[in-house]
């Protein structure tokens, strides 16, 4: 516990109301290409994500989930509409928003420690401080012994944990995660889910988590946004009233089944199931 508090600066004071929006999207429209070939990836999307919440975005492939994250992270400009993070309009990548990719995207020419320290280097944080925090976070994600290994020496699950550790070192207030466990086997995935919830509970970050797994979305999130494809829109935002801490055993409770049915019915209507 104390390790975490050292490793991750707690953002947001305890007295703060949890309901203040940290991410605001208004009428977001993203168009790829132009003229007759133009494709609307996202159209007229409104969304508010609260400070400190675990927010899942659930939708079939091609519904613009990844586009949405790219816009919030500042990698992609909105064609129309407004994007705010922390009350400021997003005009490009910023230190307060961290991104964890679908693939671990580690740089093979750097050791795991160097990879994890990369945000500190680029954001010009104090090197000694970054190194200390990198080691603490690597311990936290169970990679302490592999700090001096190269990415090619790690398994898929370990590499993904290193990617998440790198996101944590950036110490951004908001972590955007684009199907971070999509490529993992079911058992590793379940363990990673629990680890991530643990990290989130202790770090008080806002996490926006993209997934196309219904179970994963319900298990992890405070709220789940359902998206529909072509063009991508948010159809519904569902509050998940399951107690915390969440455990995989909850997946067999009637409440969990109720949420699962709700989302499955929707996907059936879409013709995705």
């Amino acid at each position: 516990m104390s390790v975490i508090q050292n490793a991750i600066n707690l953002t947001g004071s305890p007295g703060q109301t949890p309901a203040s929006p940290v991410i605001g999207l208004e009428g977001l429209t993203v168009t790829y290409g132009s003229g007759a070939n133009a494709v609307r990836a996202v159209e007229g999307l409104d969304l508010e994500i609260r400070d400190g919440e675990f927010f899942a975005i659930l939708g079939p492939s091609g519904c613009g989930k990844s586009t949405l994250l790219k816009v919030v992270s500042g990698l992609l400009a909105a064609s129309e509409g407004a994007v705010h993070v922390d009350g400021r309009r997003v005009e490009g990548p910023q230190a307060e928003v961290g991104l964890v990719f679908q693939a671990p995207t580690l740089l093979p020419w750097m050791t795991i420690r160097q990879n994890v320290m990369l945000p500190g280097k680029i954001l010009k944080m104090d090197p000694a401080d970054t190194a200390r925090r990198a080691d603490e976070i690597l311990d936290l994600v169970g990679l302490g012994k592999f700090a001096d290994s190269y990415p090619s020496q790690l398994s898929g699950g370990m590499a993904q944990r290193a990617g998440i550790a790198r996101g944590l070192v950036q110490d951004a207030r908001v972590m955007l995660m684009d199907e971070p466990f999509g490529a993992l086997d079911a058992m590793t995935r379940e363990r990673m889910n629990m680890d991530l919830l643990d990290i989130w509970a202790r770090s008080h970050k806002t996490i926006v988590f993209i997934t196309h797994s219904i179970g994963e979305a319900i298990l992890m999130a405070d709220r789940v946004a359902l998206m529909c494809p072509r063009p991508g829109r948010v159809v519904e935002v569902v509050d998940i009233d399951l107690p915390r801490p969440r455990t995989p055993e909850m997946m067999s409770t009637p409440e969990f089944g109720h949420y699962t049915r709700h989302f499955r019915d929707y996907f059936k209507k879409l013709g995705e199931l």
Partner: protein
Amino acid sequence: MSDHIQTRTTPLEQQPAPRSFHLPQWVLPAVFFVGLIILWEVGIKWGEVPSYIVPAPSDIWNAAMRNISRGLYPPHIWATMQSVLIGYGAGVLGGIVLGTLFAEIRLFERLVFPLIVALQSMPKIALAPLFVMWFGYGFTSKVVTVTLMCLFPVLVNTVTGLKSADPDRISLIRAMTGSRLQVFRYVKLPSAASHIFAAMQVAVVMALIGALVAEFVGSDRGLGILIQNGQLNLDTPGIFAVLVILSALGIGSTAIVRYVHGKVVFWERRADRPSGE
């Protein structure tokens, strides 16, 4: 069918290890090479081929030994290698710098690329006589020829390498608010390193060709001159001895570049390693 299942369920340690005699990999090619030399020697002696047409290996050896005892080779090897080293360094560096400008600056690419394509499809070696006229007889024209020979392969591969960088890795740095320079330093340049080294290996051979031809057309020192002298004096064994020296220099230089390649771009060797670790 039952047989099949039985073999599959045999515990691993009980299976007989595949037996084979482990000769080092180089033995067979070496034996073949020595055999070839012997065949050559015997064929020439039996066929009574005059040594000014095709010398026997023993003639080449004798010529080489005679010249070595006279101290003929070192100054000429040095004259050739000096221009090779300087021209190679300049060509590789120039190729990397120009390649970077091409890959990173759109305007530069649009303006200069057609010219480069035109130059690239022309045999650079044809310019050697011009360089002798411009830069004079000897060292400078040689270095310029070698530089030009090395420049193009490195330039082309630098552009390819920089453009082949994984877009996700670039996004990664950008999402961390990284600058273009940081994207270049942390992602693009390491991604291009292997391409650049591959071109540097090609450039070693190009450099030797450049130096030789430049010596043919305008120099009084170097291994190219020894070949020309051999031609004038009908000293075929002497020419062959120089050819042996040249291929040794080529093999040696390529081996050095390959070694440095492996040391610098260590992560690709790691990734290429057979799986199972």
